[in-house]
Protein backbone atom coordinates (compact mmCIF):
# COMPACT_ATOMS: atom_id res chain seq x y z
CA UNK A 1 0.00 0.00 0.00
CA UNK A 2 2.86 2.38 -0.73
CA UNK A 3 2.62 5.32 -3.04
CA UNK A 4 1.03 8.71 -2.82
CA UNK A 5 -2.65 9.47 -2.59
CA UNK A 6 -2.90 10.17 -6.30
CA UNK A 7 -1.36 6.83 -7.15
CA UNK A 8 -3.77 5.03 -4.88
CA UNK A 9 -6.71 6.94 -6.34
CA UNK A 10 -5.49 6.04 -9.80
CA UNK A 11 -5.24 2.37 -8.89
CA UNK A 12 -8.72 2.44 -7.32
CA UNK A 13 -10.18 4.04 -10.42
CA UNK A 14 -8.55 1.42 -12.64
CA UNK A 15 -9.86 -1.35 -10.43
CA UNK A 16 -13.38 0.01 -10.87
CA UNK A 17 -13.20 -0.43 -14.65
CA UNK A 18 -14.65 -3.99 -14.73
CA UNK A 19 -17.70 -2.87 -12.74
CA UNK A 20 -18.13 0.27 -14.86
CA UNK A 21 -17.93 -1.68 -18.12
CA UNK A 22 -20.54 -4.15 -16.85
CA UNK A 23 -22.88 -1.28 -15.93
CA UNK A 24 -22.35 0.36 -19.33
CA UNK A 25 -23.20 -3.00 -20.92
CA UNK A 26 -26.51 -2.99 -19.00
CA UNK A 27 -27.39 0.50 -20.29
CA UNK A 28 -26.31 -0.19 -23.88
CA UNK A 29 -28.40 -3.37 -23.77
CA UNK A 30 -31.47 -1.25 -23.01
CA UNK A 31 -30.95 1.20 -25.90
CA UNK A 32 -33.97 1.61 -28.15
CA UNK A 33 -33.03 0.35 -31.62
CA UNK A 34 -36.31 1.15 -33.41
CA UNK A 35 -36.11 -2.20 -35.17
CA UNK A 36 -39.14 -4.47 -35.42
CA UNK A 37 -38.89 -7.25 -32.88
CA UNK A 38 -35.53 -6.13 -31.53
CA UNK A 39 -36.83 -5.31 -28.06
CA UNK A 40 -37.84 -8.90 -27.42
CA UNK A 41 -34.52 -10.41 -28.47
CA UNK A 42 -32.17 -7.75 -27.11
CA UNK A 43 -28.84 -9.40 -26.27
CA UNK A 44 -27.81 -9.92 -22.66
CA UNK A 45 -24.63 -7.81 -22.77
CA UNK A 46 -24.27 -7.87 -18.98
CA UNK A 47 -23.79 -11.64 -19.14
CA UNK A 48 -20.91 -11.17 -21.60
CA UNK A 49 -19.29 -8.69 -19.20
CA UNK A 50 -19.77 -10.86 -16.12
CA UNK A 51 -18.34 -13.94 -17.86
CA UNK A 52 -15.35 -11.97 -19.22
CA UNK A 53 -14.35 -10.54 -15.84
CA UNK A 54 -15.06 -13.80 -14.02
CA UNK A 55 -12.56 -15.52 -16.30
CA UNK A 56 -9.81 -12.89 -16.43
CA UNK A 57 -10.08 -10.75 -13.29
CA UNK A 58 -12.28 -12.42 -10.66
CA UNK A 59 -10.29 -10.55 -8.00
CA UNK A 60 -11.77 -7.28 -9.33
CA UNK A 61 -15.16 -8.80 -10.02
CA UNK A 62 -16.28 -10.89 -7.03
CA UNK A 63 -19.67 -12.59 -6.75
CA UNK A 64 -21.20 -9.64 -4.93
CA UNK A 65 -20.40 -7.35 -7.90
CA UNK A 66 -22.06 -9.80 -10.30
CA UNK A 67 -25.08 -9.76 -7.98
CA UNK A 68 -25.13 -5.93 -7.90
CA UNK A 69 -24.88 -5.67 -11.70
CA UNK A 70 -27.80 -8.11 -11.92
CA UNK A 71 -29.85 -5.95 -9.56
CA UNK A 72 -29.22 -2.86 -11.70
CA UNK A 73 -30.10 -4.89 -14.80
CA UNK A 74 -33.37 -5.97 -13.18
CA UNK A 75 -34.22 -2.39 -12.24
CA UNK A 76 -33.45 -1.08 -15.74
CA UNK A 77 -35.02 -3.94 -17.71
CA UNK A 78 -38.15 -4.21 -15.60
CA UNK A 79 -37.62 -7.88 -14.88
CA UNK A 80 -38.54 -9.10 -11.36
CA UNK A 81 -35.97 -7.68 -8.96
CA UNK A 82 -33.49 -10.43 -8.05
CA UNK A 83 -34.02 -12.51 -11.20
CA UNK A 84 -31.05 -11.35 -13.28
CA UNK A 85 -29.09 -10.92 -10.05
CA UNK A 86 -29.49 -14.65 -9.39
CA UNK A 87 -28.79 -15.60 -13.02
CA UNK A 88 -25.58 -13.54 -13.18
CA UNK A 89 -24.50 -14.74 -9.74
CA UNK A 90 -24.83 -18.37 -10.82
CA UNK A 91 -23.09 -17.74 -14.17
CA UNK A 92 -20.26 -16.07 -12.24
CA UNK A 93 -20.01 -19.01 -9.82
CA UNK A 94 -19.88 -21.54 -12.67
CA UNK A 95 -17.15 -19.63 -14.52
CA UNK A 96 -15.05 -19.00 -11.41
CA UNK A 97 -15.22 -22.67 -10.41
CA UNK A 98 -13.98 -23.64 -13.90
CA UNK A 99 -11.41 -20.86 -14.09
CA UNK A 100 -8.38 -23.18 -14.31
CA UNK A 101 -9.92 -24.77 -17.37
CA UNK A 102 -9.82 -21.43 -19.20
CA UNK A 103 -6.14 -20.72 -18.45
CA UNK A 104 -4.27 -20.55 -21.75
CA UNK A 105 -7.22 -21.80 -23.79
CA UNK A 106 -7.94 -20.39 -27.23
CA UNK A 107 -10.79 -17.97 -27.82
CA UNK A 108 -12.85 -20.66 -29.56
CA UNK A 109 -12.97 -22.62 -26.31
CA UNK A 110 -14.00 -19.54 -24.36
CA UNK A 111 -16.71 -18.81 -26.93
CA UNK A 112 -18.01 -22.37 -26.73
CA UNK A 113 -18.05 -22.18 -22.92
CA UNK A 114 -19.84 -18.83 -23.09
CA UNK A 115 -22.54 -20.22 -25.35
CA UNK A 116 -23.12 -23.06 -22.86
CA UNK A 117 -23.38 -20.54 -20.00
CA UNK A 118 -25.69 -18.30 -22.07
CA UNK A 119 -28.04 -21.18 -22.85
CA UNK A 120 -28.05 -22.21 -19.20
CA UNK A 121 -28.71 -18.60 -18.12
CA UNK A 122 -31.61 -18.27 -20.59
CA UNK A 123 -33.26 -21.50 -19.41
CA UNK A 124 -32.75 -20.58 -15.76
CA UNK A 125 -34.07 -17.04 -16.32
CA UNK A 126 -37.07 -18.33 -18.22
CA UNK A 127 -37.89 -20.79 -15.43
CA UNK A 128 -37.56 -18.06 -12.78
CA UNK A 129 -39.85 -15.71 -14.71
CA UNK A 130 -42.38 -18.49 -15.27
CA UNK A 131 -42.37 -19.25 -11.54
CA UNK A 132 -42.67 -15.61 -10.49
CA UNK A 133 -45.40 -14.64 -12.98
CA UNK A 134 -47.11 -18.03 -12.60
CA UNK A 135 -47.44 -18.08 -16.41
CA UNK A 136 -45.50 -19.55 -19.30
CA UNK A 137 -43.86 -16.82 -21.37
CA UNK A 138 -43.11 -17.81 -24.95
CA UNK A 139 -39.61 -19.39 -25.01
CA UNK A 140 -38.87 -18.15 -28.54
CA UNK A 141 -37.65 -14.63 -27.61
CA UNK A 142 -35.33 -16.10 -24.96
CA UNK A 143 -33.94 -18.51 -27.57
CA UNK A 144 -33.32 -15.84 -30.22
CA UNK A 145 -32.02 -13.42 -27.61
CA UNK A 146 -29.48 -16.07 -26.57
CA UNK A 147 -28.42 -16.64 -30.19
CA UNK A 148 -27.89 -12.89 -30.62
CA UNK A 149 -25.94 -12.72 -27.34
CA UNK A 150 -23.67 -15.57 -28.44
CA UNK A 151 -23.21 -13.95 -31.86
CA UNK A 152 -22.24 -10.60 -30.31
CA UNK A 153 -19.96 -12.19 -27.69
CA UNK A 154 -16.71 -11.97 -29.73
CA UNK A 155 -17.24 -8.29 -30.50
CA UNK A 156 -17.94 -7.24 -26.92
CA UNK A 157 -15.22 -9.51 -25.57
CA UNK A 158 -12.82 -7.75 -27.93
CA UNK A 159 -13.92 -4.36 -26.51
CA UNK A 160 -13.49 -5.62 -22.94
CA UNK A 161 -10.09 -7.11 -23.76
CA UNK A 162 -8.85 -3.86 -25.34
CA UNK A 163 -10.05 -1.84 -22.35
CA UNK A 164 -8.60 -4.43 -19.99
CA UNK A 165 -5.25 -4.14 -21.73
CA UNK A 166 -5.29 -0.35 -21.90
CA UNK A 167 -6.41 0.35 -18.34
CA UNK A 168 -5.14 -2.55 -16.28
CA UNK A 169 -1.97 -3.01 -18.30
CA UNK A 170 -2.19 -6.71 -19.05
CA UNK A 171 -1.84 -8.43 -22.40
CA UNK A 172 -5.24 -9.20 -23.87
CA UNK A 173 -5.90 -12.82 -23.03
CA UNK A 174 -8.23 -13.51 -25.86
CA UNK A 175 -6.20 -12.58 -28.90
CA UNK A 176 -4.95 -16.10 -29.50
Amino acid at each position, binding site marked *: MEGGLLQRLDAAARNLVPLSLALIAVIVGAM*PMYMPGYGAIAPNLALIAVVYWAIYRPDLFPAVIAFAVGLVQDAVMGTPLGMNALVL*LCAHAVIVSQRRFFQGKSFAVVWWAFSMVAIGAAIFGWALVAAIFAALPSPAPALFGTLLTVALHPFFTWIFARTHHAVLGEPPNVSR
Partner: protein
Amino acid sequence: MRYRAGSVVRLAAPLKVLVQRFAFLLLVASAFALMMLGKGDALIVERFRAGVVDLVAPAMEVLSRPAATVAAVVDETEELIALRTENARLREEIGDLREWQNAARRIGAENASLRDLLSFVPSEPARFISARVIGDTGGAFVRSMILNAGRRHGVEKGQAVVTGDGFAGRIFEAGFHSARVLLVTDINSRIPVLVESSRARAILAGDNSDRPRLAFLAANAEVAVGDRIVTSGHGGMFPMGLPVGTVAQVRDGVVRVAPLVDLDRLEFVRVVDYGRVLPPDAAGPDAAAGAAPRR
Protein backbone atom coordinates in the same frame (compact mmCIF):
# COMPACT_ATOMS: atom_id res chain seq x y z
CA MET B 1 0.30 -16.28 -6.65
CA ARG B 2 1.71 -13.70 -4.32
CA TYR B 3 -0.31 -15.00 -1.37
CA ARG B 4 1.81 -18.12 -1.07
CA ALA B 5 4.60 -16.37 0.83
CA GLY B 6 2.98 -16.15 4.28
CA SER B 7 2.09 -19.14 6.44
CA VAL B 8 -0.79 -17.24 8.03
CA VAL B 9 -2.32 -16.87 4.61
CA ARG B 10 -1.90 -20.59 3.99
CA LEU B 11 -3.90 -21.30 7.12
CA ALA B 12 -6.46 -18.69 6.22
CA ALA B 13 -7.02 -20.04 2.70
CA PRO B 14 -9.62 -22.72 3.63
CA LEU B 15 -11.33 -20.13 5.80
CA LYS B 16 -11.46 -17.79 2.82
CA VAL B 17 -13.14 -20.49 0.72
CA LEU B 18 -15.65 -21.05 3.52
CA VAL B 19 -16.43 -17.33 3.72
CA GLN B 20 -16.82 -17.20 -0.06
CA ARG B 21 -19.24 -20.14 -0.05
CA PHE B 22 -21.21 -18.51 2.73
CA ALA B 23 -21.31 -15.19 0.88
CA PHE B 24 -22.55 -16.99 -2.25
CA LEU B 25 -25.35 -18.70 -0.35
CA LEU B 26 -26.24 -15.43 1.33
CA LEU B 27 -26.49 -13.69 -2.07
CA VAL B 28 -28.64 -16.51 -3.49
CA ALA B 29 -30.92 -16.24 -0.46
CA SER B 30 -31.19 -12.46 -0.85
CA ALA B 31 -32.03 -12.83 -4.55
CA PHE B 32 -34.91 -15.14 -3.64
CA ALA B 33 -35.98 -12.82 -0.84
CA LEU B 34 -36.03 -9.88 -3.27
CA MET B 35 -38.11 -11.84 -5.77
CA MET B 36 -40.64 -12.71 -3.06
CA LEU B 37 -40.68 -9.10 -1.89
CA GLY B 38 -41.19 -7.88 -5.46
CA LYS B 39 -44.02 -10.33 -6.00
CA GLY B 40 -45.86 -8.71 -3.11
CA ASP B 41 -45.60 -5.32 -4.88
CA ALA B 42 -43.54 -3.94 -2.00
CA LEU B 43 -43.21 -0.16 -2.19
CA ILE B 44 -39.50 -0.33 -1.35
CA VAL B 45 -38.84 -2.51 -4.41
CA GLU B 46 -40.69 -0.03 -6.61
CA ARG B 47 -38.80 2.92 -5.12
CA PHE B 48 -35.49 1.15 -5.68
CA ARG B 49 -36.28 0.41 -9.32
CA ALA B 50 -37.47 3.95 -9.99
CA GLY B 51 -34.37 5.32 -8.26
CA VAL B 52 -31.99 3.22 -10.35
CA VAL B 53 -33.78 4.17 -13.57
CA ASP B 54 -33.61 7.84 -12.53
CA LEU B 55 -29.85 7.45 -12.07
CA VAL B 56 -29.19 5.85 -15.45
CA ALA B 57 -31.79 7.88 -17.38
CA PRO B 58 -29.37 10.70 -18.37
CA ALA B 59 -26.96 8.13 -19.84
CA MET B 60 -29.81 6.37 -21.63
CA GLU B 61 -31.05 9.67 -22.98
CA VAL B 62 -27.66 10.44 -24.54
CA LEU B 63 -27.24 6.91 -25.91
CA SER B 64 -30.72 6.74 -27.41
CA ARG B 65 -30.15 9.79 -29.61
CA PRO B 66 -27.68 8.30 -32.12
CA ALA B 67 -29.88 5.22 -32.44
CA ALA B 68 -32.88 7.45 -33.07
CA THR B 69 -30.95 9.42 -35.70
CA VAL B 70 -29.89 6.27 -37.55
CA ALA B 71 -33.46 4.98 -37.41
CA ALA B 72 -34.73 8.31 -38.78
CA VAL B 73 -32.25 8.22 -41.70
CA VAL B 74 -33.27 4.65 -42.55
CA ASP B 75 -36.94 5.60 -42.34
CA GLU B 76 -36.45 8.63 -44.57
CA THR B 77 -34.64 6.58 -47.20
CA GLU B 78 -37.43 4.02 -47.17
CA GLU B 79 -39.96 6.83 -47.51
CA LEU B 80 -38.12 8.37 -50.45
CA ILE B 81 -38.23 5.04 -52.28
CA ALA B 82 -41.93 4.63 -51.61
CA LEU B 83 -42.82 8.24 -52.35
CA ARG B 84 -44.98 7.73 -55.44
CA THR B 85 -47.12 4.92 -54.13
CA GLU B 86 -47.34 6.65 -50.77
CA ASN B 87 -48.57 9.80 -52.50
CA ALA B 88 -51.33 7.95 -54.33
CA ARG B 89 -52.36 6.19 -51.15
CA LEU B 90 -52.48 9.46 -49.23
CA ARG B 91 -54.66 11.14 -51.90
CA GLU B 92 -57.13 8.32 -51.58
CA GLU B 93 -57.00 8.57 -47.79
CA ILE B 94 -57.64 12.34 -47.92
CA GLY B 95 -60.85 11.65 -49.82
CA ASP B 96 -61.96 9.17 -47.19
CA LEU B 97 -61.01 11.48 -44.36
CA ARG B 98 -62.94 14.42 -45.89
CA GLU B 99 -66.08 12.35 -45.67
CA TRP B 100 -65.26 11.52 -42.07
CA GLN B 101 -64.56 15.16 -41.32
CA ASN B 102 -67.99 16.13 -42.60
CA ALA B 103 -69.57 13.40 -40.55
CA ALA B 104 -67.63 14.47 -37.45
CA ARG B 105 -68.66 18.11 -37.91
CA ARG B 106 -72.30 17.13 -38.26
CA ILE B 107 -72.13 14.85 -35.22
CA GLY B 108 -70.19 17.48 -33.23
CA ALA B 109 -72.84 20.10 -33.88
CA GLU B 110 -75.59 17.63 -33.05
CA ASN B 111 -73.76 16.60 -29.87
CA ALA B 112 -73.35 20.22 -28.78
CA SER B 113 -77.02 20.99 -29.23
CA LEU B 114 -78.03 17.81 -27.41
CA ARG B 115 -75.70 18.70 -24.53
CA ASP B 116 -77.32 22.09 -24.31
CA LEU B 117 -80.65 20.38 -24.20
CA LEU B 118 -79.57 18.12 -21.31
CA SER B 119 -77.44 20.71 -19.43
CA PHE B 120 -74.65 18.13 -19.60
CA VAL B 121 -71.58 18.71 -17.36
CA PRO B 122 -68.50 17.95 -19.50
CA SER B 123 -65.74 15.89 -17.89
CA GLU B 124 -62.46 17.66 -17.26
CA PRO B 125 -60.30 17.87 -20.38
CA ALA B 126 -57.26 15.59 -20.32
CA ARG B 127 -53.77 16.99 -19.98
CA PHE B 128 -50.96 15.51 -22.06
CA ILE B 129 -47.34 15.17 -21.08
CA SER B 130 -45.09 14.50 -24.07
CA ALA B 131 -42.08 12.28 -23.49
CA ARG B 132 -39.33 10.60 -25.44
CA VAL B 133 -38.66 6.86 -25.28
CA ILE B 134 -35.09 6.50 -23.98
CA GLY B 135 -35.03 2.79 -23.17
CA ASP B 136 -36.54 -0.19 -24.96
CA THR B 137 -36.19 -2.74 -22.23
CA GLY B 138 -37.32 -6.09 -21.10
CA GLY B 139 -35.46 -8.53 -23.29
CA ALA B 140 -37.20 -11.85 -23.52
CA PHE B 141 -39.38 -11.64 -20.46
CA VAL B 142 -41.11 -8.29 -20.17
CA ARG B 143 -42.33 -5.60 -22.57
CA SER B 144 -41.61 -2.19 -21.18
CA MET B 145 -40.06 1.13 -22.11
CA ILE B 146 -38.43 3.96 -20.23
CA LEU B 147 -39.55 7.56 -20.77
CA ASN B 148 -37.63 10.74 -20.05
CA ALA B 149 -40.49 12.28 -18.05
CA GLY B 150 -41.34 11.54 -14.43
CA ARG B 151 -43.13 12.85 -11.37
CA ARG B 152 -41.41 16.20 -11.89
CA HIS B 153 -43.46 16.58 -15.06
CA GLY B 154 -46.67 15.24 -13.61
CA VAL B 155 -46.34 11.61 -14.67
CA GLU B 156 -47.93 9.26 -12.14
CA LYS B 157 -48.32 5.52 -11.85
CA GLY B 158 -51.40 4.23 -13.67
CA GLN B 159 -51.67 6.95 -16.33
CA ALA B 160 -52.33 5.92 -19.91
CA VAL B 161 -49.59 6.22 -22.54
CA VAL B 162 -50.80 7.00 -26.06
CA THR B 163 -49.52 8.02 -29.46
CA GLY B 164 -51.39 9.51 -32.39
CA ASP B 165 -52.36 5.96 -33.37
CA GLY B 166 -53.84 4.91 -30.05
CA PHE B 167 -53.16 3.34 -26.70
CA ALA B 168 -49.66 1.94 -26.06
CA GLY B 169 -49.59 1.03 -22.38
CA ARG B 170 -49.69 2.43 -18.89
CA ILE B 171 -47.22 3.97 -16.48
CA PHE B 172 -45.95 1.22 -14.25
CA GLU B 173 -43.33 3.07 -12.22
CA ALA B 174 -42.78 6.80 -12.04
CA GLY B 175 -39.38 8.08 -10.94
CA PHE B 176 -38.50 11.72 -10.46
CA HIS B 177 -37.48 12.39 -14.07
CA SER B 178 -38.08 9.02 -15.70
CA ALA B 179 -40.92 6.54 -15.87
CA ARG B 180 -41.51 2.99 -17.03
CA VAL B 181 -44.32 2.08 -19.41
CA LEU B 182 -45.80 -1.39 -19.27
CA LEU B 183 -46.81 -2.04 -22.88
CA VAL B 184 -50.14 -3.67 -23.74
CA THR B 185 -48.22 -6.74 -24.93
CA ASP B 186 -46.52 -7.39 -21.57
CA ILE B 187 -47.40 -10.60 -19.77
CA ASN B 188 -48.59 -8.58 -16.75
CA SER B 189 -50.67 -6.07 -18.72
CA ARG B 190 -54.46 -6.18 -18.14
CA ILE B 191 -56.52 -3.44 -19.76
CA PRO B 192 -60.32 -3.22 -19.48
CA VAL B 193 -61.62 -2.83 -23.05
CA LEU B 194 -64.76 -2.82 -25.20
CA VAL B 195 -65.38 -4.20 -28.65
CA GLU B 196 -66.37 -0.92 -30.28
CA SER B 197 -69.18 -2.18 -32.48
CA SER B 198 -70.90 -4.62 -30.12
CA ARG B 199 -69.94 -2.89 -26.81
CA ALA B 200 -68.93 -6.31 -25.42
CA ARG B 201 -66.66 -5.94 -22.41
CA ALA B 202 -63.39 -7.83 -22.02
CA ILE B 203 -59.91 -7.60 -20.58
CA LEU B 204 -57.02 -7.20 -23.00
CA ALA B 205 -54.38 -9.51 -21.52
CA GLY B 206 -50.81 -9.40 -22.79
CA ASP B 207 -48.69 -12.54 -22.98
CA ASN B 208 -45.38 -11.12 -24.28
CA SER B 209 -46.38 -11.95 -27.85
CA ASP B 210 -47.06 -9.18 -30.39
CA ARG B 211 -50.78 -9.85 -30.20
CA PRO B 212 -52.44 -9.71 -26.78
CA ARG B 213 -55.63 -11.69 -26.36
CA LEU B 214 -59.14 -10.78 -25.18
CA ALA B 215 -59.86 -12.47 -21.87
CA PHE B 216 -63.16 -12.66 -20.01
CA LEU B 217 -65.09 -12.00 -23.20
CA ALA B 218 -68.70 -13.15 -22.87
CA ALA B 219 -69.22 -16.45 -24.72
CA ASN B 220 -72.05 -15.04 -26.84
CA ALA B 221 -70.23 -11.83 -27.71
CA GLU B 222 -69.95 -11.10 -31.40
CA VAL B 223 -66.38 -10.50 -32.48
CA ALA B 224 -65.05 -10.49 -36.01
CA VAL B 225 -61.64 -9.89 -37.48
CA GLY B 226 -61.18 -6.15 -38.03
CA ASP B 227 -63.36 -5.00 -35.11
CA ARG B 228 -61.88 -2.09 -33.24
CA ILE B 229 -61.01 -2.48 -29.56
CA VAL B 230 -61.14 0.60 -27.33
CA THR B 231 -60.53 1.19 -23.62
CA SER B 232 -63.72 0.83 -21.62
CA GLY B 233 -62.88 3.18 -18.78
CA HIS B 234 -63.90 0.53 -16.25
CA GLY B 235 -61.82 0.58 -13.12
CA GLY B 236 -61.27 4.30 -13.54
CA MET B 237 -57.69 3.90 -14.74
CA PHE B 238 -58.10 5.30 -18.25
CA PRO B 239 -60.66 7.41 -20.05
CA MET B 240 -63.19 5.55 -22.15
CA GLY B 241 -62.79 5.18 -25.88
CA LEU B 242 -59.03 5.31 -26.42
CA PRO B 243 -58.43 3.10 -29.48
CA VAL B 244 -56.20 0.12 -28.57
CA GLY B 245 -56.19 -2.25 -31.51
CA THR B 246 -58.11 -4.25 -34.06
CA VAL B 247 -59.11 -7.89 -33.82
CA ALA B 248 -56.53 -9.80 -35.83
CA GLN B 249 -57.55 -13.40 -35.32
CA VAL B 250 -60.47 -15.38 -33.89
CA ARG B 251 -59.61 -19.02 -33.53
CA ASP B 252 -60.84 -21.69 -31.10
CA GLY B 253 -62.47 -19.04 -28.95
CA VAL B 254 -59.19 -17.16 -28.56
CA VAL B 255 -59.40 -13.60 -29.84
CA ARG B 256 -56.07 -11.94 -30.63
CA VAL B 257 -55.74 -8.19 -31.01
CA ALA B 258 -53.14 -6.34 -33.08
CA PRO B 259 -52.24 -3.09 -31.28
CA LEU B 260 -52.73 0.06 -33.38
CA VAL B 261 -49.48 1.51 -32.11
CA ASP B 262 -46.27 0.26 -33.73
CA LEU B 263 -44.62 -0.67 -30.42
CA ASP B 264 -41.29 -1.45 -32.08
CA ARG B 265 -40.76 2.07 -33.33
CA LEU B 266 -42.05 4.26 -30.56
CA GLU B 267 -39.99 7.38 -30.20
CA PHE B 268 -42.34 9.98 -28.77
CA VAL B 269 -45.40 9.25 -26.69
CA ARG B 270 -47.93 11.23 -24.71
CA VAL B 271 -48.86 10.43 -21.14
CA VAL B 272 -52.52 11.23 -20.51
CA ASP B 273 -53.30 12.83 -17.20
CA TYR B 274 -57.04 13.25 -17.01
CA GLY B 275 -57.12 14.52 -13.47
CA ARG B 276 -57.62 11.31 -11.55
CA VAL B 277 -57.74 12.07 -7.85
CA LEU B 278 -54.81 10.37 -6.16
CA PRO B 279 -54.61 9.41 -2.51
CA PRO B 280 -52.49 11.95 -0.59
CA ASP B 281 -49.56 9.58 -0.04
CA ALA B 282 -49.32 8.62 -3.71
CA ALA B 283 -48.91 12.21 -4.91
CA GLY B 284 -45.63 13.43 -3.43
CA PRO B 285 -44.82 17.10 -2.89
CA ASP B 286 -42.81 17.22 -6.12
CA ALA B 287 -45.80 15.93 -8.06
CA ALA B 288 -47.85 18.90 -6.97
CA ALA B 289 -45.05 21.40 -7.51
CA GLY B 290 -43.99 20.46 -11.01
CA ALA B 291 -47.33 20.02 -12.64
CA ALA B 292 -46.53 22.23 -15.61
CA PRO B 293 -47.21 20.40 -18.89
CA ARG B 294 -44.20 19.51 -20.99
CA ARG B 295 -44.24 20.20 -24.66
